[in-house]
């Protein structure tokens, strides 16, 4: 993970930012494209050390496959989460038993932790309150167990397996 060159990380950031520029302007006029290339290069040079840690490796076919798989799992979980919340809200007795539980993650990179925390927030009944080092504190609508191993299995395992393959 540490041996990725600065050039690769810079180029990756540049490509992503330029794609974002094209999405914002949605025009192929030559002057706009040139200005976009220049501006996205300047911004990429300033921010690439925060933006990515694996660089151009993220575009390798295997990792793209994992990213697509992650997206599918995430969208399924998001839809499930909404029906879950809708069911709770529409039940007159409000069947909830909230509490804050903790578990440990095996992920090291900050970006992977951010993505995991965001995914947990959007999946059924769970909500990330804080992340300290590699401990996640999660607010859970229906606490089933306090044991951190079981919590990890119930909440994070399906996401983390794929994130480990993408970011480590």
């Amino acid at each position, binding site marked *: 993970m540490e041996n990725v060159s600065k050039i690769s990380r810079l180029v990756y950031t540049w490509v992503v930012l330029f794609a974002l520029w094209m999405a914002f302007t949605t025009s192929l006029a030559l002057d706009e494209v040139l200005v976009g290339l220049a501006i996205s290069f300047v911004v990429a040079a300033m921010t690439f050390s925060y933006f990515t840690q694996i660089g151009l490796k993220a575009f390798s076919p295997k990792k793209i496959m994992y990213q697509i798989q992650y997206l599918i799992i995430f969208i399924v979980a998001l839809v499930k*989460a909404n029906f879950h919340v809708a069911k709770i809200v529409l039940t007159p007795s409000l069947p909830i038993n*909230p509490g804050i539980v903790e578990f440990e993650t095996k992920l090291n990179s900050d970006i992977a932790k951010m993505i995991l925390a965001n995914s947990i927030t959007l999946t059924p009944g769970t909500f990330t309150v804080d992340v300290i080092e590699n401990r996640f504190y999660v607010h859970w609508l229906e606490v089933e167990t306090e044991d951190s191993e079981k919590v990890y299995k119930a909440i994070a395992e399906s996401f983390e397996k794929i994130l480990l393959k993408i970011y480590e």
Partner: protein
Amino acid sequence: METILNYLGYFFVSIGAVFLVLGAFGILRMPDFYTRIQAGTKSSTLGAMSFIFGVGLLEPAWFIKTLVIVVFIAISNPISSHALARGAYKSHHQPYLKDGVDAYKEVENQKEVKL
């Protein structure tokens, strides 16, 4: 082709509107701050995503721009509500617990001892 896209667009817009209403309803009904933010974040995120995606299908020329908004909402909404929940906990909002656990309490207590 046009009509299929139109019907898909109507479908996604209607689903999104339903979830936006449900999210607001959840905020009104839940008993405390943390459960409210749960209901609010989930439903309003999916509601707005599907709503705006549906508008993108109805008007294919705008599809890329609407996709940018969808991705931005998907990233920014969880982050802002997470920051809000942490801020609320640090300003001594006690979560409503029926018989659940509060593992985060120990961390906060330790910090106060250290200071």
